[in-house]
């Protein structure tokens, strides 16, 4: 007769991820598998799962907890029946972005891109787009931390093509 006392069979497998700065994170397997980059690491190599440490070269440990939190919550949202009300998802997403600087947001976009997870990447890129809506060119440059490398003549020509789009915007 099967015993229900075996706790080891119901225990969720954990996978160890190593952030770029060397810090280790123990993550439940289904959460780790949200990341295509981690998933592909194990393709054809399933037995090795327990012992191996997956190096995540482009992800800072600063952002790992928030990113893992996003995966855990969103996979729970997806599985839940009936689906969660839109307000609940919206509230989580807004709280996720709160207090994140533009710089942190961009770093997380780079991380999501490296981890190859569409849902997180879509969410973060949309957040970035929202932050530059109805803003001046100077603001957008500061947002991305980029330099203006157009010659004055080039820039004047670009602006003249659609002069209407460049006046009277939010500088801050």
């Amino acid at each position: 007769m099967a015993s229900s006392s075996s706790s080891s069979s119901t225990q969720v497998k954990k996978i160890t991820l190593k952030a770029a700065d060397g810090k280790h994170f123990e993550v439940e397997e289904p959460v780790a598998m949200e990341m295509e980059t981690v998933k592909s690491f194990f393709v054809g190599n399933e037995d090795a799962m327990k012992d191996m440490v997956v190096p995540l070269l482009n992800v800072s440990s600063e952002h790992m907890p928030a990113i893992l939190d996003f995966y855990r919550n969103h996979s729970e949202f997806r599985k839940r029946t009936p689906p969660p009300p839109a307000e609940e998802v919206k509230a989580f997403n807004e709280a996720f972005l709160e207090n994140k600087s533009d710089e942190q947001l961009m770093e997380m976009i780079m991380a999501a891109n490296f981890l190859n997870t569409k849902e997180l990447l879509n969410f973060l890129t949309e957040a970035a787009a929202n932050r530059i809506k109805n803003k001046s060119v100077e603001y957008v440059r500061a947002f991305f931390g980029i330099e203006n490398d157009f010659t004055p003549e080039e820039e004047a020509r670009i602006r003249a093509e659609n002069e209407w789009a460049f006046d009277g915007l939010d500088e801050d």
Partner: protein
Amino acid sequence: MEVIAVDWTELPPELIQTITERLTIYSDYLRFQATCRRFRSSVPKSPSHLPPQLPWLMLPQSQSHQSRQAFFDLYANRVHFLHLPEASNHCKRNCGSSHGWLVILDETPYVILLNPLTRAKIHLPPLFTFPNVVSFNYFEVGREYTLSSLGGDRFYRNLRQMRDSFIKKIVLSSSPGKDGGNFIAVAILNQTGDLAYCRNGDLGWSIIEGARSYCEDVIYNNGLFYAVDKGGAVAVCDVSGVGDLARVSVIQTPMQLGGDMQYLVSSGDELLLVTRFLGLEFGFEPDQPHLIYRTIRFEVFRLDWNGMQWERVRSLGDKVLFIGENLSLSLSASDFPRCVSDSIYYTDDYSEGNYDDVFGEHDSGIFSLCSGSIEPLPCYPQNLHCRLQWPPPIWVTPNPC
């Protein structure tokens, strides 16, 4: 904790593109392109991902800016001036606006499509190619056009009459700059209540037989033109078959009574009928008391496809409708800041025929469906002078292609 510096000036091109694809407003896209060389070269010059844009209100011509045309942008809450000599002329009439392209008539037989953003221009077949125009002769001054009535009688029209009253409105199936320019145009003719159509590249206009009197409004949706008559009956016209005659079927709804003008709007999966009620007002201009029409309210109905009847709609929810001389438009207010949901933004598309005699401003505003109240459009120039009245304002969607 060690902080690793991520250099996102080295943002991969595909990420730059992903971010720009989340930009939904064309002006935001243009500014993104103007930041630096790398960003500019990473994204398409003309975006193809943009959803329908919030229309601008093309304002009447002012005498101080002869070649510059003013447009009010509800999103940015300001007026843009575009260098647009093609449209900026007191002899021109806007006779429709679809997918960002204006239909312009002047005191010539030419029917011109103009994209005010790109200044791209396309000719539709000229006025003398309509089947009910028998002949055209520049030298018959004052009676340049000879027309034929339904009964076969001949009558004459001059250049200005043809510009102002021959065509009520022209709508396009799609933007001439998209899908290889495979668009179809449909014109509502005032004289006979006929609908006429042409495909891009046709040499002349053809009458859609069987759709006469469905001349209140026309829209295009999913391969078909829908035209409505005074009583709310809808003619569904398929003019896509090359070489074929137009196929017309009629949705005979119970007669809608009341209302002065009917508009059709395609909104999500629904076909809406918008009924406009006008009231007569007594205007007190110094020296010249006069009567003017003014919109007092709207009613909205949705087509019940099973029962083939119009059902009253009490709320548009998040939707906002734009009607007038333009191809009617429905958008989600939540996509655009400063846009009031459950409202109808309307312009004057009936009094232009006698613009010489009309005083005061045009009949335009924002009608709230839930409260029944009317607010003025935020941009409407105050203290209008008569010289600012022509041409009447029209909604036009900024569209780069």
